[in-house]
């Protein structure tokens, strides 16, 4: 019994010791704290969530899943999805590609890196597309290209505006040349929608890069961006290697693009619904109803 008591004390001692060791080398539990990739400040996850995943120190607007984005953007229960059953094939026979796609489909509850459909935003009906960087960095392959193209064709036919939340690492190399051609295919559909008088709003979110920046993302009539997000054509590392110099922190940020003239406005997440519905109003699109509820 006495032995037991000693054992307990020993256990407690060990527990305390490991506690102190933890303080010495803190490991940040991913689900408890958020560390901002821009300013490195650390905040509690529930505060971060409450702020719709934005950094309280530098206002970086962090990445959202397609479901999170839909929830804070569309009126409640207004979303009707398109093309949920489309599955990518493997154009160049890239090893394990189908397997990778399948596991990402299960993890993200979506068939590829973009959700498309129609919804209302504060009562205004619009075609919407939301890219999800959790899915192979939202790279564009056959399915992303086809879903975007069909969304624009649907909008053209039904005289609807299109709002795309872009995020992408660029073309999906695993699909070879077929992925490059999606840039032409999507841009062609955007051009036809535009020539028919349709409104297209791009909202650039973190990160919008590569072949997506060099195609449909840059073709919006109005281009909005969230604060502090990364937007660019070439990768930062590639440029750094070319010029052999460190790049300034704000290089390829939304603010950098605003200053160089490639973004119309930077809009905070909390004001996004209002900004979007206001632009739709300014283009004479009509409200479907006044009974919208915030999603």
């Amino acid at each position, binding site marked *: 019994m006495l032995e037991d008591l000693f054992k307990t004390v020993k256990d407690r001692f060990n527990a305390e010791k490991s506690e102190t060791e933890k303080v010495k080398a803190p490991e940040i539990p991913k689900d408890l704290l958020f560390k901002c990739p821009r300013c490195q400040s650390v905040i509690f996850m529930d505060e971060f969530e409450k702020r719709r995943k934005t950094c309280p120190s530098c206002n970086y607007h962090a990445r959202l899943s397609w479901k999170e984005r839909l929830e804070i953007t569309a009126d409640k229960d207004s979303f009707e999805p398109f*093309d949920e*059953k*489309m*599955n*990518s*094939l*493997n*154009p*160049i*026979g*890239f090893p394990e590609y189908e397997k990778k796609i399948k596991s990402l489909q299960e993890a993200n509850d979506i068939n590829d890196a973009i959700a498309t459909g129609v919804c209302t935003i504060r009562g205004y009906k619009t075609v919407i597309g939301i890219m999800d960087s959790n899915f192979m960095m939202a790279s564009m392959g*056959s*399915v992303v*290209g*086809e879903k975007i*193209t069909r969304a624009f064709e649907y909008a053209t036919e039904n005289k609807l505006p299109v709002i795309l939340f872009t995020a992408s690492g660029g*073309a999906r*190399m*695993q*699909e*070879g*040349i*077929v*992925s*490059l*051609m*999606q*840039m*032409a*295919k999507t*841009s*062609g*559909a*955007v*051009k*036809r929608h535009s*020539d028919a008088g349709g409104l297209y709003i791009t909202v650039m979110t973190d990160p919008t890069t*590569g*072949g997506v*920046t*060099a*195609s*449909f*993302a*840059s*073709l919006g009539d109005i281009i909005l961006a969230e604060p502090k997000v990364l937007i*660019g*054509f*070439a*990768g930062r590392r*590639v*440029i750094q290697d*070319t*010029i052999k110099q460190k*790049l300034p922190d704000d*290089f*390829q940020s939304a603010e950098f693009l605003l200053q*160089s*003239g*490639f973004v119309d406005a930077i809009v905070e997440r909390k004001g996004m619904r209002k900004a979007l519905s206001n632009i739709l109003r300014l283009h004479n699109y009509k409200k479907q109803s006044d009974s919208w509820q915030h999603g």
Partner: protein
Amino acid sequence: MTLSATQRLEIIREKTRPTVNDYIPAIFNHFTELHGDRLYGDDAAILSGIATIDGTPVTVIAQVKGRNLEENKKSNFSMPHPEGYRKALRLAKQAEKFHRPVICLVDTPGAFCGVEAEKRGQGEAIAKNIAEFMTLKTPVISVVLGEGGSGGALALAVCDELAMLENALYSVISPRGFASILWKDPAREKEAAELMKITAENLVEFGVCDKIIAEPVGGAHNDPSATAENISDYLIEAIGRLTKIDIDTLLENRYQKFRKIGMFTEE
């Protein structure tokens, strides 16, 4: 005998492989160079102007690989800046106005990656070319001469017909870049080149390439003038054919050419 992608990669890297500086005088007459994008400057990575081929005026837009270091320094190793793409678009619009076919000669490792290129909107410049070429109301023919590198090539390759020289390659990223990003090992370049399916024959199968232009045995450098003649014969035939098609049909065909590319299933 069919050559592998790696063998073709070696051929197009041959120092004496002809460039647009060899081909333009051999294929066209009355070439008149026109400079500048009217917005920022003139980009020597893209050479453009008006010329005739078989008596017909055409607009020529060409990416300039240098034949030596000096030429390459001037043309930035054929890696255009945004003003290069904007110059191309300006001349394409001019061609549309005067009903001239547009001939794009593609030969680039890719659009330039740099601070100034980003600042001046490399992504926007490429995107705009892709969208505008899609509805350009005049025939557009693109010929890949050597390297067709990613978006930097596509900005001059939204066309009614895409032809490739027999040994030319056209890819979403260089084999080296592919190996470096996906396998973290740029040394696996050759393996990547084979896997990526980037030869003219591969691209015919994908519906990207419409015509393969023959090169002399061993590659274009073995007989530049014969290669130029093959390109010329193809262009004359294609221009004759495409200018007979009414413009609405031409544009619908162009849209569909790209619209149908994609590999997926739907249950």
